[in-house]
Each structure stands twice: as C-alpha cells, then as structure tokens.
C-alpha cells in the first residue's frame, strides 16, 4: 500500500530527526560539569521546542547545583555545603525569608564572604520563598515552576533573564568563597542560556 509506505517513511524521517535532535542536545550538554554549553551549541537542533528544552536542561546544571538549591529548600531550613546538609546552627526562614526575629541571616552573613569564618555573605542574604522551593524536584518540575508567576515571584519569563543573569545574590553562586564549589560556567553564560530559552519559547524538558 503506497499510502502506508509513505506514512511509514514520514514516521521514520520524523523519528530520525527527533533522535538526531535529542542526540545533538545530549552532545551539547555533555560538557565538563563545571562549564556551560553556549546557546549556539544547540543550534543544530532543528525543532525549536526541542532546542528550547535542551537549553533549559543545560541551565539545569546551575539550577540544581547546591549553590542554588541550598537556598531554595523544600522546608523552612536552608541547607549548606556541597553535601547539602541542613544549615548549622539551626536557622529558619522566618516571616520574610531573612530569618527569625532573634536569628536574622544578616547577623552572621555580612555584606561579603568572610572566609576566615567560612561564612558566605551578601547584603541581601536570605532564602527563597516556599513557593520557589526547588529541592527534591525534577528539572521538568522546576521548569514549570520557574515559568509560573505564582511560584516565581511574579516574574515574566523575560524577568528571569535579569534575575539569573545579573542579580548579584544569584551571582554569589559563582563566587561562593572558601570550601564551596561554584555553580557551573559563569553568571553571564547562565543568563545567555535563559535568554535563549525564553526566545525559543521557554519549553520544558519532559523530566
């Protein structure tokens, strides 16, 4: 049956193209763990949605890194170190994410890292709101969450480019001080990935 044959051919071509796209995306994301692939390295993925999801998967190296997840905790206590242990001394988010009334983050976390005390610092040190928790979530779940204004601080997708690409507290993740691994790549590279992801439709990976 010519019609069935034609259909089979089209399915074969589509599946092959999808496989090639996925393989290209896979290849682009198989960089050394502390680096980030550029948006251009995904240009061989013809399908825009697949390319967008692949770009987000690359960005996921940053979003799932301890420097980010430790302060996007599932509970009320932040985590710390590359081992993601619960913060010691015991602290809680408090009403505004800056700690409790008697244990504010800024008491120990000063304006900059203080390596002799092994204490990271930034003027706005705090943890992300509960609705922005990433801990324990798949990349697909984080992606859906990060696009949802109800769970991303009311940000449009374009705002995420600035938040991840230039916000100085986010930027701390690439300059975390003594004893902590930095987030992969650079903040500028992460921002470029967000930019490319948004411009390709902000598609999410399937898992």
């Amino acid at each position: 049956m010519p019609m069935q044959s034609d259909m089979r051919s089209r399915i074969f071509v589509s599946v092959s193209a999808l496989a090639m796209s996925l393989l290209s995306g896979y290849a682009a994301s198989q960089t050394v763990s502390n680096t980030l692939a550029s948006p251009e390295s995904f240009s061989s993925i013809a399908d825009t949605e697949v390319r967008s999801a692949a770009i987000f998967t690359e960005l996921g190296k940053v979003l799932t890194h301890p420097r980010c997840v430790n302060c996007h905790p599932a509970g009320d206590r932040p985590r710390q170190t590359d081992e993601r242990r619960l913060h010691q001394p015991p602290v809680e988010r408090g009403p505004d994410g800056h700690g409790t009334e008697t244990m504010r983050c800024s008491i120990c976390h000063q304006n900059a890292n203080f390596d002799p005390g092994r204490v990271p610092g930034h003027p706005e040190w705090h943890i992300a709101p509960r609705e922005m928790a990433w801990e324990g979530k798949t990349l697909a779940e984080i992606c859906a969450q990060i696009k949802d204004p109800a769970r991303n601080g009311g940000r449009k997708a374009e705002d995420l480019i600035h938040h991840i690409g230039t916000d100085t507290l986010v930027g701390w993740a690439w300059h975390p001080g003594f004893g902590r691994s930095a987030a992969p790549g650079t903040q500028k590279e992460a921002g470029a990935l967000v930019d490319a992801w948004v411009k390709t439709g902000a598609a999410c990976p399937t898992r």
Partner: protein
Amino acid sequence: MTTLALTINGRAHGPREVRDDLTMNDFLREYLGMTGTKFGCGAAQCLSCAVIVDNPDGTSYTSPTCIVSAASFDGKAIRTVEGHAKNGELSALQKAFIDHFAFQCGYCTAGFLNEAQVLLERLAKKQVARAELEKTIAEALDGHLCRCTGYIKYHEAVRDVILADPKRYLV
C-alpha cells in the same frame, strides 16, 4: 586592613586599623584583652562567643563573634559579659545564675547571660502572658549549648528574674 571604631560597654574604641581577616572574637580577646567572651566551637554552633549588639532604635540582638569579622562591627555598639555588673554589683541575672548553680565550667555563661539580658529588655518593651513565659524563655535560650548543667538551671534562673518583677515583664 580596615579601620574599626565601635562602642563596647558604653566606651568608645578606635578608630584603629585591623586586618580584614580578623574575627570579632580575636579582636575582643587578643587585641582588647576582654576574655570574658569565649571562643567555643568556632562555627557559631554553641554561641558561647555571643555578644549583644545594640541597634540605634533601642532594640538589641545577640551575635556570634567567632565567625564574624571585626570589621563588620565598625560603627556599632556592643555589650559583653564585662559590662553587666555596675559599680562592682552583679546584675539580677548574674546573681540568679549563681543562686541556681546555673553553670559549672562557665564557658557558656557569657553567651547565656547576653541572650537572657536581650530577652529581659525585649520583654520590658513587649510583655508576654504568664502562660507564654516558659516557651518564650526556651526559645530565647535555644541555640546556646551547655555541657555541664543541662540548661534547666539557666532556664529557672531567667524565669526567677522575670517573676520577681512581673509588672515589668508580664501582662
């Protein structure tokens, strides 16, 4: 190097140059000889090193000194264990700590004393109900580690000071 000027127990110190990597604990103990503030765990876990920081608005809080830079205290007013007794007379809290045998080795005492003092001053501004007192004391002292007397004696000492002046601290 950083220029540091601050007020400690009502007395101005500095300005003087200090190393950027100098902790506040070392500044107090090694530069000023104020060894009442202890160095315990070195990781802000035991709070034996805690001092009182007074805000310009009249509120206060405790801060560990072991992991925090001396430079970060520039321009601030702090109180240490050496500042509690006035004219040679111990404060009500200090007397209560002794009466209750709240400490043995005494390593944690300065931290507990400072924390309890901040609690008293907070309650004097915003009283709590008697029914909330036990919880309030426990929450205030939470985080301070003691390996001698088991906490309850500190708790009871603070409670006694508060109950000795209920109109001031309780509603």
